């Protein structure tokens, strides 16, 4: 990619520029990979965490490499490869990875070894793999891809920062396929910590009833969801992405609704045009309130749906919502498992509204194509 010729005047999305989601790859808690049958059979759990169903990695990664890779690396690299296959893209023009916590399994391994062996007899593998851009680096290595390769690591902005960057890249040069994804892993210790931080429900649960308890805490999750973004509509196009916006630490609900209204205006969408809103409801009564307030103020006409009972709460869980939205728009069907009302609108436009602990709020708009 030569940036010299591509920096255009100042606006994010060029007039007439359309961004399409042309490929999907996923390692998620609902099925091994991603197929058209997505959510025809719903996985539920009584655990306080939902783990990914890992596919047969040999189909995507050189078997000699699999053994050495940490779980997050396998999830990320396999998901990226699936996605490129799905889009029919061999070499992406950019690789963008979002991860809230990075390679925590390897980080813990190396940290544990330092502590247990008093800084002696250490081996480098887990240290090398603990680096936050390992997934992005391994994808490049697997593909022999010399192109632009960024990793974003900002809590619940990690994936959305990739989306923002992808849209800028496509505005800079239209003829590109940008690979981007969100990936996070759960470990035994990270789950313990999430529990100690009071972010898990402290009573028995069934994941599909997540919103019924009206108590504090949620269920933890993990996953890897990758996408190919392009300005070209192809046979494999799932949906059109109109825009994505991040809002940091709004002081009150008014600030959120104002920011959302602005975002809709920028994208020339009326609130009444939105057929379905995918909310990041995670069952934590303290934070879910914000979704309901925004819904009541601005989005009362749209169908109400949620997704974290299917994937759990994690920093890049919104990448699962993108997968879900793209799936709905392509298949023109909505799994009843995600609906919280019976408006049953024909779904052509979806808004995703997610926030992490009231701090990192994001809005995304997707449209059928």
């Amino acid at each position: 990619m030569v940036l010299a010729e591509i920096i255009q005047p100042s606006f994010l999305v060029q007039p007439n520029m359309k961004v399409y989601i042309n490929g999907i790859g996923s390692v998620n808690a609902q099925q091994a990979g991603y197929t058209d049958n997505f959510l025809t059979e719903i996985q539920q759990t009584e655990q306080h965490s939902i783990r990914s169903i890992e596919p047969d990695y040999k189909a995507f990664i050189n078997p000699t490499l699999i053994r050495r890779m940490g779980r997050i690396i396998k999830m990320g690299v396999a998901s990226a490869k699936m996605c490129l296959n799905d889009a029919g893209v061999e070499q992406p023009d950019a690789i963008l990875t979002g991860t809230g916590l990075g390679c925590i399994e390897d980080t813990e391994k190396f940290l544990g070894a330092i502590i247990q062996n008093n800084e002696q007899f250490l081996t480098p593998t887990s240290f090398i793999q603990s680096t936050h851009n390992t997934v992005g680096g391994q994808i490049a290595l697997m593909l022999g891809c010399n192109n632009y390769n960024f990793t974003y690591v900002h809590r619940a902005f990690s994936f959305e920062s990739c989306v923002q960057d992808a849209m800028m890249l496509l505005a800079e040069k239209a003829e590109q396929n940008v690979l981007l994804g969100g990936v996070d892993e759960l470990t035994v210790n990270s789950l313990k910590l999430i529990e100690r931080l009071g972010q898990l429900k402290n009573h028995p649960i069934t994941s599909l009833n997540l919103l019924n308890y009206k108590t504090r805490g949620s269920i933890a999750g993990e996953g890897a969801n990758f996408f190919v973004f392009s300005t070209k509509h192809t046979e494999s196009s799932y949906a059109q992405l109109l825009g994505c916006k991040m809002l940091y630490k709004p002081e009150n609900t008014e600030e959120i609704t104002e920011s959302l209204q602005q975002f809709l205006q920028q994208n020339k969408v009326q609130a009444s045009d939105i057929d379905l809103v995918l909310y990041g409801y995670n069952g934590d009564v303290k934070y879910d309130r914000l979704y309901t307030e925004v819904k009541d103020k601005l989005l009362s006409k749209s169908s109400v749906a949620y997704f974290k009972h299917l994937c759990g709460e994690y920093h890049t869980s919104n990448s699962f919502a993108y997968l879900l939205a793209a799936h709905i728009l392509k298949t023109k069907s909505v799994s009843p498992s995600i609906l919280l009302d019976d408006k049953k609108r024909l779904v052509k436009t979806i808004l995703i509204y997610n926030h992490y602990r009231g701090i990192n709020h994001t809005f995304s708009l997707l449209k059928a194509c």
Partner: protein
Amino acid sequence: MTDRVVVTGIGIISAIGKNTDESLQHFRSATSGIGAITQIDTIHKTNLPVAEVKYSNRELLNLLNIANKKCNYTRTSLLGMFAAKQALESAGIHSVKKKKTGLVSANSVGGMDKSEVFYATFLGHPKKGKISNIVGHDCGDSTEHIADYLGIKEQVTTLSTACSSSANAIMLGSRLIQHGLLDRVIVVGCDSLTKFTINGFNTLLIFDKEACRPFDATRNGLNLGEGAGYIVLESEKSAVESGKKIRGILSGFANANDAYHQTASSPDGNGAYLAMSQALSMSNLQPNQIDYINVHGTATQNNDLSEGIAMKRIFGETVPRFSSTKSFTGHTLGAAGGIEAVFSIMALEQQLIYPNLRFKTPIPELQLIPETKLIEGAGIKHILSNSFGFGGNNSTLIFSAA
């Protein structure tokens, strides 16, 4: 032609001082910041030299005028807050609300300095360990503390691509301005020394037991450092409107991937070559217009050879004057690109080329000789700065005189 992106403020803290003046004094007196470990409890205290910031966390809190001594900021946050505030002041920005102002920060190990204290207890006793020591583990934590300290809300994000993290944050910051999403952005990075990174790089056998010798035939590895470097990027229009002094222009940048090995650089320096050539192409400069290269120059066998080969592929037999300021600051990992961006702006303003300390003999395969003495009145218009990281992540920035 688009509105240019210019630098209007700089802020720095590293082993060679807590501002630009102190850093300059060290450059002028050829005094490096590399010495014994004093702030970390490690078995490597006596055998591995590092480049520490000479203040404890408590002293940093005082420097930041934070009265609440109970707040449990990670060292990474403290260093970042300190340098970012300095950059904002140096740009004469009193209110971040007046224009669309964002923060793009970078680091490599987040709040690991506290995490490793926490894990020491937690691993044996899962119900124990001070929980506030783990909440700052992730890389976004320090960014949010910096944003809150400066009152920034417009755009807040964090990059982590190992040792090129900061350079990439500068690129992102510039693009956010070029796309009209921000008028100005405080960019770049911070990292603190930790037992984790000290032991990690030690397992890779790339530490020199002495102070490092970048680009020397006898180089034997790097010394870790810590610190933070921040710059304020603005659209030229925004800077001119507010009557700001333009300190430098970010005229080119590129990120490319070596796609060769998770940690090692390729023998032909392909990623480095691509990053440098694409950045040159963006800046519309010919290689012979580059007056100084602030090399990545970690002083590992692998980096300096690979980077040198890439430099020769670009510049032929007339490689510009170059030096590695890591011979002063150590390798500050995720902060390196930020610290070296600040040094680049200082070099343009002061017309200085910094010495590459402890160089004696050129690498046989390269025969490249860095500048070993401080050069004043250097006549520099364009500086190229390299930052390369794990995952084959190679980045080049080009700064030009205003």
